[in-house]
């Protein structure tokens, strides 16, 4: 079943055609990687899916419904979580609070109930807290729980960001270069976690990634972009030998 699909999506900034007529289909349960040289339009594609930009043409559907024109916050409500390339965490707060914010879409309390902190609000918070602990256990973040984000090393921040995305309880998670800034050992761990997220939690993963080892290890499908255009789609092994891909990376 197709979970996320883009149909001839285009966007340009002034004269730069960042993404041109890109189409792809991600099936539920897949790990789908998007690779390509710098400036190929990979992150732009993510930003189009999470509605930070408006598409100039084309459409994006999620679960069979068009999300091309929904307001940005509704993308998360529909079950798409994401991370950012250089991390976008809530820097002055603890890991715990960051993860609790991840539960925002599941809140069931009205403002006035929160102002009085009725028992309902307390119970909701305890449930959120329980779920946060599950994610903390999954990603081994116990030792960071009460630390302020600003004091964490970069590798830990990347993991906290993934954890925060998981707290949203998504169907689909978009990872923007999850391994950038990680050392080889952390990247190794990451590949296991991506598999866990995919297989144990049943979350579909779409990731932009440069580390080809990681891509080959975890991906079911790979999409190659260059200059905003799709040049190849296939399994990791098909992509590796593809002549157009070699040309895009290495030149003629």
């Amino acid at each position, binding site marked *: 079943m197709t979970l996320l699909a883009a149909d001839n999506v285009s966007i340009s900034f002034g004269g730069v055609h960042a993404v041109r007529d890109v189409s792809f289909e991600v099936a539920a349960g897949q790990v789908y990687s998007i690779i390509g040289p710098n400036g190929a339009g990979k*992150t*732009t594609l993510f*930003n189009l899916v*999470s509605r*930070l*930009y408006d598409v100039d043409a084309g459409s994006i559907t999620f679960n069979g419904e068009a999300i091309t024109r929904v*307001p*940005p*916050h*509704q*993308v*998360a*409500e529909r079950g798409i*979580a*994401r991370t*950012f*390339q*250089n*991390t*976008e*965490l*809530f*820097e*002055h*707060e603890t890991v*715990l*609070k960051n993860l*609790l*914010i*991840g*539960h*925002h*879409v599941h*809140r069931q*309390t009205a*403002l006035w109930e*929160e*102002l*009085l*902190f009725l028992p309902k*609000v*307390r119970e*909701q*918070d*305890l449930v959120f*807290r*329980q779920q946060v*602990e599950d994610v903390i256990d999954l990603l081994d973040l116990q030792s960071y729980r009460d630390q302020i984000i*600003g004091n964490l090393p*970069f590798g830990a*921040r990347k993991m906290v960001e993934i954890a*925060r995305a998981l707290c*949203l309880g998504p169907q689909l998670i978009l990872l923007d270069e999850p391994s950038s800034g990680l050392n080889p050992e952390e990247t190794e761990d990451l590949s296991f976690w991506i598999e866990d997220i995919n297989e144990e939690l049943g979350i579909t993963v779409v990731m932009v990634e440069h580390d080809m080892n990681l891509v080959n290890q975890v991906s079911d499908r790979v999409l190659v972009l260059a200059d905003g255009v799709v040049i190849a789609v296939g399994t990791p092994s098909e992509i590796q030998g593809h002549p157009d891909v070699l040309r895009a990376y290495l030149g003629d």
Partner: protein
Amino acid sequence: MRFVLKTRYAQDVDFFKHNGQRFWYALLGLFVFVAPFLLDDFYTGELSLVFIYAIAGIGLMLLVGYTGLVSLGHAAFLAIGAYAHAYFMTEGAPFIVSLIGATAVCVVIGAIVGIPSLRMTGIYLAVATLAFAQIVEKVLAHWESVTGGHRGMAVPEPEIFSWSLGTPRAFYFLVLLVLIGALFVALNLLRSPTGRAMIAIRDSEISAQAMGIHLARVKTTSFAVSAGFTGLAGGLLAHKIGYLAPDAFTILISIQLLLMVVVGGLGSMHGVIYGAVFIGLLPQGIAFLRESLPAGIGQIPGLEPGIFGLILVLFLVYEPLGIFGRWIKIRLFFSEFPLYRKSTYKRQKSYLRTERVH
């Protein structure tokens, strides 16, 4: 060093984290309770004023310290609260109804003023709110049928069920009660999803959006709640001043409120209280300074705003976390002595954040 053993998740939700805190807050509670019996009427009145400032500061702190939206126009909400309360009471509304009504008026106006904040941030928002405050000041001066214009407006005595709260001591307890209530509500908000959403917007709008936070709704809510608290403080302030005139709510008051939250420590409710005490003591300090300085310098007319500005700048440069931040450092120094590292709170250059969408 204290280590709090957590065995229940509820411990992170509760206000007091350990018995040490309970002890000190109980002591503080006892102190503020007996204070009016030990102090004379003048100091009881000054302390009431500090509490009123604190209530207004809670509102501004939610907006500036927690949502990251700057307002240079909060004197306007103080003014609207004060005038609305005085007007309702003059029209015969009972004290409590009138105070709630004044707060509600401010909440509505705050939500409307909040709308531009969806498009503006930082300095632009500060200028817009400043303009709003100027408009309010002019309206108050010219809407004579309601506000009495420049002639001003007398504020009726506060009274609950024909029990007068006009004496300094009774008024002190009234204000204290309202302050505790306001703190309770504000802290509740901050441990709930909406409060956390405000914090998320302060730290990263783009990722708040990606977490499903409706920026427009949360920002408007923040403005409305903030204006509500400040308006409530305005209603109480009306009784303290006794006679309202438009020139009681100038830009200087807005700056003073901002000074309070910055000096106290942005992003903490403790900061509001420290800031309010500081602002409350400042006029006395400046008066004292005037006397002890040589006549030529001591009598300069603009000394007060000048000193306000200087303190604000010094804090922003040397102690951006305010008095509360300084207190945290001092506490850490003693709890880790002799292992305290000076660099613990050194401001480090943060990692690059995503700059592609801004």
